[in-house]
């Protein structure tokens, strides 16, 4: 029933390793990004004063500004982290699997 090629991939221990390692990274980074975002939104909804403190004594910019900007910048940097791993070592692993399967 199952395609023999896919069957062979499933029996390759490297496939399990790829799925485990890449899946773990994706899940971890998703939790970090969504966690930071929803934590920020909860502070906005329930404790907005925490974000209203001025950044410098008597200044107009609040601490909320750099924190908000950091959410955008850090989550972008994390897409770089994921791409780096997924396109580097994991892609190598993936290529090994494909080669071993199709040969």
């Amino acid at each position: 029933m199952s395609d023999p090629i896919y069957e062979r991939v499933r029996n390759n221990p490297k496939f399990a390793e790829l799925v485990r390692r890449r899946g773990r990274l994706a899940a971890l980074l998703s939790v970090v990004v969504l966690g930071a975002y929803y934590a920020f939104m909860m502070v906005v909804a329930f404790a907005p004063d925490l974000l209203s403190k001025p950044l410098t004594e008597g200044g107009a910019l609040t601490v909320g500004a750099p924190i908000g900007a950091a959410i955008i910048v850090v989550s972008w940097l994390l897409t770089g982290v994921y791409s780096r791993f997924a396109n580097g070592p994991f892609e190598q692993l993936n290529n090994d699997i494909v080669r071993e399967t199709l040969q």
Partner: protein
Amino acid sequence: MIRAILSVSALALLSAAPALAAGGDLGAVEKQPINLSAIGMFLAFVLLTLGITYWAANRTKSASDFYTAGGGITGFQNGLAIAGDYMSAATLLGLSSLVFAKGFDGFIYTISFFVGWPIILFLMAERLRNLGRFTFADIASYRLDQSKIRTFAALGSLAVVCFYLIVQMVGAGQLIKLLFGLDYAVAVILVGVLMVVYVTFGGMIATTWVQIIKACLMLGGGAVLTLLALNHFGFSLEAMAQSAVDSHKDGIKAMAPGTMLADPVSAVSMSLGLVFGTAALPHIMMRFFTVPNAREARKSVFVASGIIGFFFLLVCVLGMAAITIVGTDPQFFEGGKVGGKLIGGGNMPIMHLSKALGGDLFLGFLSAVAFATILAVVSGLALAGASAISHDIYARVIKKGQCTEKEELRVSKIASLFLGALGVLLGIAFEKQNVAFLVGLTFGIAASANFPILILSMYWKGLTTKGALWGGLAGLISAVTMVVLSKAVWVVVLENPAPIFPYEHPALFSMSLAFLVTIVVSKLDKSAQAKAEIAAFDDQFVRSQTGIGAAAASSH
């Protein structure tokens, strides 16, 4: 009066996301005197893109060239094009005007519009690329019933495309009337004709390059304007903020979270609809099929989210600069009354800012960019709609795969012509209507009817045809019902005194319902077909992870 305008524009924006929050917040705009520098720069853009379309037409031979540029777009190019698709007129006009009006709250919305992108990369990008070929229905129906699920997914895509197209068309007409001094109908017909030309002749190759050029123009224009704005305040954000505090009617409160998000249920529902609705917009998903492999797909999201994030931060700075520069200058208010109604409506602060800092020439440039933006977005939509009709409904469902590529291509060209005509007609019909509710519908349907099927088909082995169909229908019906009963339709359009559904966004409820129904019905489905579909997951899983068996690229 000003509060009414602000709340309408905020209301439209809540639901706007990457749409131009059209009609509703532009309102009935005054036709402006003809703006020659804007028209000149726009003509230059049109000539350039028509040249590209001619070039692309010679390279569009097969169905795969037409739908996905033969998979020959690089990750970097595709990243620019995705950013071009996502940074619509709403980001430029809508988000900056939200910061202008609401200060820090506008910034919070901007962040909400961004966070979907990392999630799309982590959870969806490689699977989309490895499983899909031309359309989102390819993935949804991968191991499920071809005719039922493909039809449902294609109709879901078409509904999203049509509603979104009306929103864009109405917005285009209003905006062009305002910025260029052209007639509403002329503007809508112009957009419709150009869109059909790009798509019919140049397919995905032309559409991609229109988006790339537009993204670069928008990024360049935004960056120059930001430099001018920073220069105005001696390159000090603190000085800009201080001045904004002195000028804004809310004073120091404008720099802190305000009342806009006081209701967490609304906030969560909005962000769910936005994040997952975006992930299931057919024209955005289609972009993942234009790159040769998962590696380039990841790279394109990295590039796209970098550009989008950077641009969003620029837009917030621009909104803050406008608080002082536009908000205290009588020439930008109707009747010269500072604090009254902005000339052209609540979406115009950034346009006025460009005039204040860069003169008429820069205003003309930014107007041309706004026009180009609308063109790029409607072209992507038309292509996604045409492929749902020709690839899914015609070639796969009606002809059961028994038709030549040539026939399929012909149908897709007729379909894009049809969509263009439909867009123009509906755009004209809806001129005087408040179309903000259509944005709510678009994202509600995308997040509640399309997204659950898509994500479960990739992640959950137990999904069956019956479950997907019932769950998708539950999401569709509940999302539409809740939008109709919400303020945007029930009060604003149907003129009832109070909304029955208290929130602006249905996603929290309709999306949860869709997931629940899909899972329960799938679990109860004990048919032989269900068993076969569940068994087919293992092979699909290998392909989604490794890309073995996925369509390879052709080079251009």
